[in-house]
């Protein structure tokens, strides 16, 4: 029994230490990106790697999710003779929930895991140590541009996801199932509020962007520098990011719409 308490206490202390370390790490990285030409160049490079290269998965997923939403929504709404509201349903679902959440989950799986693996491998091959020994701070040079790239691209990807999803809904609802196009857009326009729905969705995606990028870069930087260590860190990035996104989504929804 005493052993169990000791082990619990030890693991609790370990987790607290990791959280504290990751907090200090976030502060250093957050304020580490200089506004110099070099800093901006590094940021643009990471915006391309983290954001532009994630576009394909975001667009394809958004399109299919919008299509599925329209299909499912239509089959329910048609029973009540309200199939004209399918555009409103697709838009609200995407803008409020699925856009930020699914985009963040995809971001964690595609860009987050890549960030962790890249930084972990740089650590394992002593590239981060050699940078330190050259008097270059890896937190500023490697971590800060990647963190900021994640923060900037996440809301943009969520907006693109929602926009493409609405287009997917239009394809299925209007072009395939025959919902009147005027009603599709008019209902959407009248029910989607910029501040209440779109802005809240963007706020959610900003929060998810901070959390996913933070977890990804910290797990890479804190990984055990072996092949197994990097594998564990990459898995942790996806698992922790996904759980954090889902948990925070409930919290934010309760605050915004509760």
């Amino acid at each position, binding site marked *: 029994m005493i052993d169990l308490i000791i082990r619990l206490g030890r693991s609790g202390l370990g987790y607290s230490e990791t959280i504290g370390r990751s907090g200090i790490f976030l502060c250093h990285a957050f304020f580490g990106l200089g506004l110099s030409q070099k800093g901006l160049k590094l940021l643009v490079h990471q915006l391309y790697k983290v954001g532009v290269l994630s576009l394909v998965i975001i667009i394809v997923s958004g399109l299919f999710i919008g299509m599925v939403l329209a299909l499912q929504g239509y089959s329910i709404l048609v029973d009540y003779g309200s199939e004209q509201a399918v555009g409103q349903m697709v838009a609200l679902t995407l803008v409020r929930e699925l856009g930020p959440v699914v985009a963040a989950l995809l971001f964690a799986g595609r860009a987050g895991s890549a960030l962790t693996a890249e930084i972990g491998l740089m650590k394992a*091959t*002593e590239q981060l140590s050699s940078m*330190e*020994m*050259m*008097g*270059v701070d890896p937190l500023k040079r490697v971590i800060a541009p990647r963190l900021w790239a994640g923060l900037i691209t996440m809301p943009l990807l969520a907006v693109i996801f929602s926009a493409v999803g609405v287009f997917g809904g239009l394809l299925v609802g209007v072009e395939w199932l025959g919902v009147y196009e005027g009603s599709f857009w008019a209902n959407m326009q009248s029910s989607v509020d910029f501040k209440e729905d779109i802005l809240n969705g963007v706020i959610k995606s900003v929060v998810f962007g901070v959390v996913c990028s933070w977890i990804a870069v910290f797990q890479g930087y804190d990984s055990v520098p072996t092949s197994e260590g990097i594998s564990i860190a990459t898995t942790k990035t996806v698992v922790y990011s996904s759980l954090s996104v889902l948990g925070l989504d409930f919290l934010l929804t309760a605050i915004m719409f509760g």
Partner: protein
Amino acid sequence: MGPSGTGKTTLLRLIGGQIKPDRGEILLNGVDVVKFKRKELFDARKKMGMLFQSGALFSDLSVFENVAFPMRAHTKLPEDMIRDIVLMKLNAVGLRGARDLMPSELSGGMTRRVALARTIALDPELILYDEPFAGQDPIAMGVLVQLIRLLNDALGLTSVLVSHDISESLSICDHAIILADGHVIGEGTTSELRKSDSPLVKQFLNGLPDGPVPFHFPALDYQTDLLG
């Protein structure tokens, strides 16, 4: 020098301020490295270089860009001057012709020579070498041994070299220290060490498998272990 696991690389990391000691002081130009703040430490590191065992080249940059990296990070030199300096440093290690190759296209020996060129890019006052000869073929090893001594003398450096390649290290060093179990067991010039009476020093220099440093890792008695 010293057997594996005795703390040689740890010592280099302590000198470079990458890890902090539990106690004691590490003086660099008379200033204690341990007391440096983060920014002071990074400034101090501009005057030192470290050659890692793996070379630690940046895998996404070419040989040229790897050597140019410290200059781009710390100076505002014009591009044509950076080019000239990089080519001079690469020429010093015999790899001027390999400037456009990527690290994945280099052999182990070439990787370390490029890393050496990068290490001397900013003309440091101190270079720390971590096992520079490990895993090298005889030709690459001979080249590295000569380069280290040559660069040390030509650039007026202080070089701290960690190795367990006895003959190569003793052939170029002015002063050697042998570590075992975290303690200094012998030090001096090559000839002084060769004359040492210490059984530990003798075992290490002659490469004897058993002696004060046991061949076997601590374990139960062999017979008891086998028969239960």
